[in-house]
């Protein structure tokens, strides 16, 4: 249902007549209003929108009807204007003096930051400093930091909150296909006969993607939706089958589904022979026969025993998924990623698509839903993690380092050959006094790290010099800083976001930064100059950095070198690969005829060119438990997540009146039967305690909750779920297991 240009012009002409009735219109600047093309500040759905500006202020937003979201916005996006003028906007630099943060000039603040970083490096070496950035930073900002730290300061201690969010999805894609990022796109939802949602509450976390699913369910023929989630959430409203299970046992269920696919002849044997390899551990040295033997014990009955799900439901889910002639799209988010077995869980979803050949055709794809607006574009693709270099290159790969040194015009050997520290290790190094200076940008680890009190203590003990570039103050991180740098917020700066479906889009600046705030891009260029690395970050504006970024992706599997700034300005998002100017972009990677990186004369319909033998790997991943399970002393499982009203740590959404009033504080969701056992009613206060920490929440008895499982959202700065969570990580992805730990629940106060 996209608008042609002709429709747009007709509509604009008509709309200008409507302007007389006091309605804003798209093409017309009525009464001094401007509408600036941009993207929502929030989730990885990446809804296009226009920012309405009047008198130099953002007064409204409206959805971009020419973008994938067809003009729709969720309630958070719709209320964005309020964040710009929030009373706790950070408007001036702050420096800690005598134990308190006091206003300072930019020159003083930046001078101090540069001096302390230089001193830390001089005394303890480059690895004494680090950068912790964000999937909410613009691509050019993240790129600037990545280059400054890795090529300038020569430390690979560059990390970001996607480590807490998407690292396992990355690990899954890379181990299975050789390259990160989904091969499908949102349009696949429009063609899906079956949708499998695992560990996703899309109705609350990706509302406009959920809308697309709901629409497909409504308008498609016999569309089936299967939801795997211990909790019944609003997402299940479109489910034909909801499967609940003991947290952490989904690996058994996914293997059992594969078992049924094999046992009941739903395997695409030709596809298996042409396109797949099989592996265990790290080596793809197994065979199809090994895989079938591996699956043998994962009968539906056995999986039911392990998981508490019903065997017949597992069979139904498998049969719907595997039915020949029907397409299937899987979608998942943190339920699979925030796990010590996160990479394995991702592998098992890919396996379902690979053995059935349900991949690379419209409606059939494993589509990981990305949490943040620019985890893909800025951090994953841009290589701003401690083991990565831009666009699929690895620090550990000598050839890749040499390529980057050439592209960055730095002497050979500049980039250190050892990986830097992944996020939890970075904060451990801070705790141990090894990390002496940390620059945090656009994220709130003082609230969002697992087992957060441990890291707060290390920061409170002033073990490291902490710089926080933030648009709001106080946050649970900025309150601990030595220097707070006021950062420009969303519509106050320009840059590129890259969302879930490989869609890169340009956010144009709509208004001037508030107070003394500056865009992070400028702040980093300033810092680089003060640290003697101005030549590495010589740009005057983000568009200049974008020109350089285009040269880095050229010839890689990401190749978007055709995405000039002008092309991005005109388009409503472009999907990479897009290797030459005028190329329309790529809906489906690895597919001959769609992906420009697949040779036109390739003998098969897909080529998994990310791997040396062109084959995707089916990994044999057994059911193994989470790091910590419920036991006699801590008899409940504890899980965390999101609600539709709020984003991440709530620094923005809690400034929107309606959102704050609608969902004021994090509550502990319990099943009514658990409430009865505990003597707890809705509104009573309960103390939730793990081996690590404790917090008190009001209880809410929720029929959709799972018995034995407590859910608390992450958005409340005063009632932090992370005082309880566990910092155990997936051994490959290093992503923490936010989703599962063991707690006890005690009533402390009657409402």
């Amino acid at each position, binding site marked *: 249902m996209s608008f042609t240009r002709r429709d747009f012009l007709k509509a604009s002409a008509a709309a200008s007549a409507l302007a007389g009735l006091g309605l804003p219109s798209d093409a017309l600047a009525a009464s001094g209003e401007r509408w600036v093309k941009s993207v929502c500040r929030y989730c990885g759905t990446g809804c296009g929108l226009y920012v309405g500006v009047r008198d130099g202020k953002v007064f409204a937003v409206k959805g971009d009807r020419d973008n994938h979201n067809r*003009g729709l916005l969720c309630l958070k996006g*719709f209320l964005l204007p309020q964040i710009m003028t929030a009373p706790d906007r950070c408007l001036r630099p702050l420096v800690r003096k005598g134990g308190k943060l006091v206003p300072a000039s930019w020159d003083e603040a930046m001078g101090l930051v540069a001096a302390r970083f230089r001193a830390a490096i001089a005394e303890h070496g480059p690895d004494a400093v680090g950068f912790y950035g964000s999937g909410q930073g613009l691509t050019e900002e993240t790129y600037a930091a990545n280059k400054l730290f890795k090529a300038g300061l020569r430390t690979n201690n560059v990390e970001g909150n996607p480590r807490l969010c998407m690292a396992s999805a990355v690990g899954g894609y890379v181990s299975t296909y050789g390259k990160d990022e989904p091969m499908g796109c949102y349009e696949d939802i429009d063609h899906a006969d079956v949708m499998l949602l695992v560990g996703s509450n899309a109705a609350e976390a990706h509302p406009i993607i959920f809308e697309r699913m*709901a629409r497909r369910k409504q308008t498609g023929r016999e569309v089936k939706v299967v939801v795997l989630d211990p909790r019944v959430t609003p997402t299940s409203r479109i489910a034909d089958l*909801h499967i609940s299970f003991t947290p952490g046992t989904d690996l058994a269920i996914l293997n059992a589904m594969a078992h049924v696919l094999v046992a009941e002849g739903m395997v695409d044997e030709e596809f298996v022979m042409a396109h797949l390899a099989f592996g265990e551990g790290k080596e793809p040295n197994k065979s199809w026969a090994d895989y079938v033997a591996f699956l043998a014990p994962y009968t539906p009955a056995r999986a039911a025993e392990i998981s508490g799900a019903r065997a017949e439901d597992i069979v139904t889910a498998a049969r719907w998924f595997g039915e020949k002639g029907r397409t299937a799209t899987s979608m998942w988010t943190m339920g699979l990623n925030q796990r010590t077995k996160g990479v394995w869980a991702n592998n098992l979803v890919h396996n379902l698509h690979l053995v059935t050949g349900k991949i690379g055709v419209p409606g059939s794809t494993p589509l990981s839903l990305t949490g943040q607006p620019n985890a893909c574009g800025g951090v994953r693709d841009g290589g701003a993690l401690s083991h990565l270099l831009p666009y699929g290159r690895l620090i550990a790969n000598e050839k890749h380092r040499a390529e980057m040194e050439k592209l960055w015009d730095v002497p050979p050997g500049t980039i250190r050959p050892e990986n830097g520290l992944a996020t939890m290790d970075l904060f451990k190094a801070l705790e141990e006094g090894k990390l002496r200076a940390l620059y945090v940008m656009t994220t709130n680890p003082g609230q969002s790290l697992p087992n957060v009190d441990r890291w707060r203590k290390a920061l409170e003990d002033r073990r490291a010099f902490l710089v926080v570039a933030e648009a709001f103050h106080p946050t649970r991180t900025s309150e601990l800083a030595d220097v707070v740098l006021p950062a420009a917020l969303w519509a106050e700066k320009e840059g590129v976001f890259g969302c879930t479906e490989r869609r890169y889009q340009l956010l144009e600046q709509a208004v001037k930064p508030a107070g003394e705030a500056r865009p992070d891009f400028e702040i980093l260029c300033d810092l680089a100059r003060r640290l003697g690395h101005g030549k590495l970050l010589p740009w005057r504006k983000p568009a200049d950095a974008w020109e350089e970024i285009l040269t880095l992706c050229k010839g890689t599997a990401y190749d978007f070198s055709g995405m000039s700034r002008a092309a991005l300005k005109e388009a409503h998002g472009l999907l990479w690969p897009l290797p030459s100017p005028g190329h329309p972009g790529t809906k489906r990677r690895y597919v001959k005829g769609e992906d420009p990186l697949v040779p036109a004369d390739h003998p098969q319909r897909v080529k998994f060119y990310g791997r040396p033998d062109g084959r995707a790997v089916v990994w044999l991943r057994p059911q193994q438990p989470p790091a910590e399970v419920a036991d006699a002393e801590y008899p409940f499982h504890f899980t965390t997540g999101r609600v*539709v009203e709020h984003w991440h740590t709530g620094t923005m959404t809690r400034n929107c*009146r309606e*959102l*704050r009033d609608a969902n004021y504080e994090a*509550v502990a969701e319990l099943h009514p039967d658990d409430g009865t056992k505990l003597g707890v009613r809705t509104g009573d206060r309960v103390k939730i305690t793990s081996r690590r920490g404790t917090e008190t929440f009001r209880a809410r008895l929720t029929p959709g909750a799972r018995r034995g499982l407590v859910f608390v959202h992450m958005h409340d700065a005063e009632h932090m779920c992370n005082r309880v969570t566990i910092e155990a990580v997936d051994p490959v992805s290093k992503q923490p297991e936010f989703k599962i730990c063991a707690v006890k629940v005690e009533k402390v106060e009657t409402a």
Partner: protein
Amino acid sequence: MSRSIPALPLLSIALLVAAAAPAKPGRGHPDAGPNPAADACETCHRDATPDVFREWDAGPHGLLLVKCFVCHGSTGKDFARAPAAQRCHGCHPAETATFAAAKGGAAKGSVRCFDCHAPHGLAAPGKPNPHAK
């Protein structure tokens, strides 16, 4: 648990933007403030206005969690009984354009989304569809 999903408006029959109409004066809404015990608006309105709640819940806004305050604002002085046009326009700009085009430009008098669309359930049964595909 599986429930039948509500009839989702296709793009072509979705909300359209009305001429701007100021919120009617008169009946407001008590200031519910930030109420930690409340579950958005549901806690009270399931019982206080069950028909409204049911219609909303069964309709597309209920499914897609376009909660009360998106249209009505917050409670107390921020409450708008009749949502202003901007509230619809923000998420449904396509319908603005198609409606305007179908009407051939300026409409006589004031036309409201809710002349056709039921206020909470949002269906528009039996009405001609002015939204071009």
